[in-house]
């Protein structure tokens, strides 16, 4: 048959000899990803109207072009990127009959050149689900262990050794929840009584020690949100009322510092508030904190905002106010010297890209993602 085809093509081309040469027959190929740039954007799509089919989209923030996609199972939350971007790790959940049958959870490893699954590790079928939270999972600074938050509703953390590709341990964090990596072998969790605990792991990923902080916020009067940002060895926990509790984990200790306020009295009177999903982000190089803000009444801690205010983490002073092209619930800031500020809102498919230094709107990326959540970059 192939031979016959060649004859038939040659004949056809002969027929058209006078006019310019016809198009040549093509071979279908499969694209590969180019070299990663700091402006690559992984945008999680919870796909709320079809969350059995959650996805993570990869865009080039400089062009807005979609580069690829991962299908991430039921209740997708976010990805973990190896520090050297050698792999992408995704906690995924499946049922043998979609909404029924046997529940299986895995941590899948994807290749960063062709986005193909390279392997999976079965993990306890207990992952915390619902509204996505960045702190429902994390990766240690050296990229050795991926940490996955569990809620049954009893809380614990699953530890996966991604180098050995095996599940190591489930560490209970009773009365506490969430995962905030604090080094190569440690992470912190926030607790319902206004404290936090730091868990130290041994080299195998098992529990080595557990340290508890003093109470540093009032969980009833002014709780910190679970949406925190990391600045070096410090995690910034921001309260409903806009107070920043910086906790320094350098050297394996827990150092509490005096909270500082995002809003002065005038701004409070004008009802400025924090709010959204992942409403804050830090650019480490410039030491700047980006916060989505809005004006409104009480219980606005999940409301999207039309403005991002920028703070200098050395002086705690506001240094810029960025009016957004469209309301934002979550933001991300790329890690490079010419950072992008990227916003998403579950009510608006897609993502919006700004110059993080000037606040200039650069482009709006059309969705899907249909109900975007997490925004992450290499």
């Amino acid at each position: 048959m192939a031979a016959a085809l060649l004859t038939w093509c040659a004949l056809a081309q002969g027929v058209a000899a006078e006019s310019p040469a016809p198009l040549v027959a093509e071979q279908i190929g499969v694209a590969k990803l180019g070299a990663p740039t700091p402006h690559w954007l992984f945008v999680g799509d919870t796909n709320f109207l079809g969350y059995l089919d959650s996805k993570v989209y990869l865009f080039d923030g400089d062009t807005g072009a979609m580069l690829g996609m991962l299908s991430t199972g039921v209740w997708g939350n976010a990805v973990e990127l190896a520090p050297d971007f050698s792999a992408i790790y995704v906690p995924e959940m499946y049922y043998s009959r979609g909404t029924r049958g046997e529940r299986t959870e895995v941590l899948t490893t994807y290749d960063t050149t062709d986005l193909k699954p390279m392997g999976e590790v079965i993990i306890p079928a207990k992952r915390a689900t619902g509204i996505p939270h960045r702190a429902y999972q994390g990766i240690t600074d050296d990229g050795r262990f991926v940490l996955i938050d569990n809620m049954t509703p009893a809380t614990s953390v699953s530890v996966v050794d991604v180098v050995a590709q095996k599940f190591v341990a489930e560490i209970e964090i009773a009365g506490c929840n969430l995962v905030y990596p604090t080094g190569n072998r440690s992470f912190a969790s926030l607790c319902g009584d206004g404290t936090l605990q730091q868990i130290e792991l041994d080299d195998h990923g098992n529990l080595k020690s557990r340290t508890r902080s003093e109470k540093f916020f009032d969980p009833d009067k002014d709780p910190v949100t679970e949406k925190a940002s990391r600045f070096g060895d410090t995690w910034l926990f921001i309260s409903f009322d806009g107070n920043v509790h910086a906790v320094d984990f350098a050297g394996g200790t827990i150092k509490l510092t005096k909270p500082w306020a995002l809003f002065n009295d005038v701004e409070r009177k004008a009802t400025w508030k924090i709010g959204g999903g992942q409403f804050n982000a830090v650019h480490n190089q410039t030491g700047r904190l980006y916060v989505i803000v809005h004006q409104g009444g009480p219980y606005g801690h999940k409301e999207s905002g039309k403005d991002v205010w920028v703070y200098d983490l050395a002086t705690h002073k506001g240094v810029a106010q960025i009016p957004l092209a469209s309301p934002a619930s979550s933001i991300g800031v790329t890690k490079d010297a010419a950072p992008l500020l990227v916003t998403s809102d579950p009510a608006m498919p897609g993502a919006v890209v700004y110059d993080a230094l000037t606040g200039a709107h650069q482009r709006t990326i059309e969705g899907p993602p249909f109900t975007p959540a997490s925004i992450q970059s290499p």
Partner: protein
Amino acid sequence: MKWLDNWFTKGTRRIARNTSRRDFLSRVGVAMVGTAAIPLLPVARASAAESPRAPQPAEEGDPLSCEYWRHCAIDGYLCGCCGGSANSCPPGAEPSPVTWIGTCRNPVDGRDYIISYNDCCGKSACGHCLCNRNEGDRPVYQPAKSNDINWCHGTKTNIYHCSTSVVLGLAVAD
């Protein structure tokens, strides 16, 4: 609600400090179900129960509106728009025995009531009447008061379909 919340955090922490992990998980599992489920019936009885679809006499407003008083801390699809009601799951869905709890004021009698926001589970998203109100909502490290959490726990699957707003009783300030 404070009494409940304090009991929850203190209680679980106390257990955590004095027991092994496995022992802990089993016991806290029970303890927490106990906590959140105190005012609820076991699932078996719940499913068998007649479901009062109409609001009670001393209520007013539209149960299918996000502004309905009971929904003051809800986050999800109203089951009343999905084939159920404010206090019943749609056909074939399974009520979660564990849940988060809010306190809402009934405009008719001016009283504060404890509202249990049981999720209905086992079918994927209903997609109708999405509401998000956060009065008294707390972060997920205070699970019993957080509406971000998928409360399809203790059900056959953790597949979320819609949310209810069930009156448990009067709230008493302590």
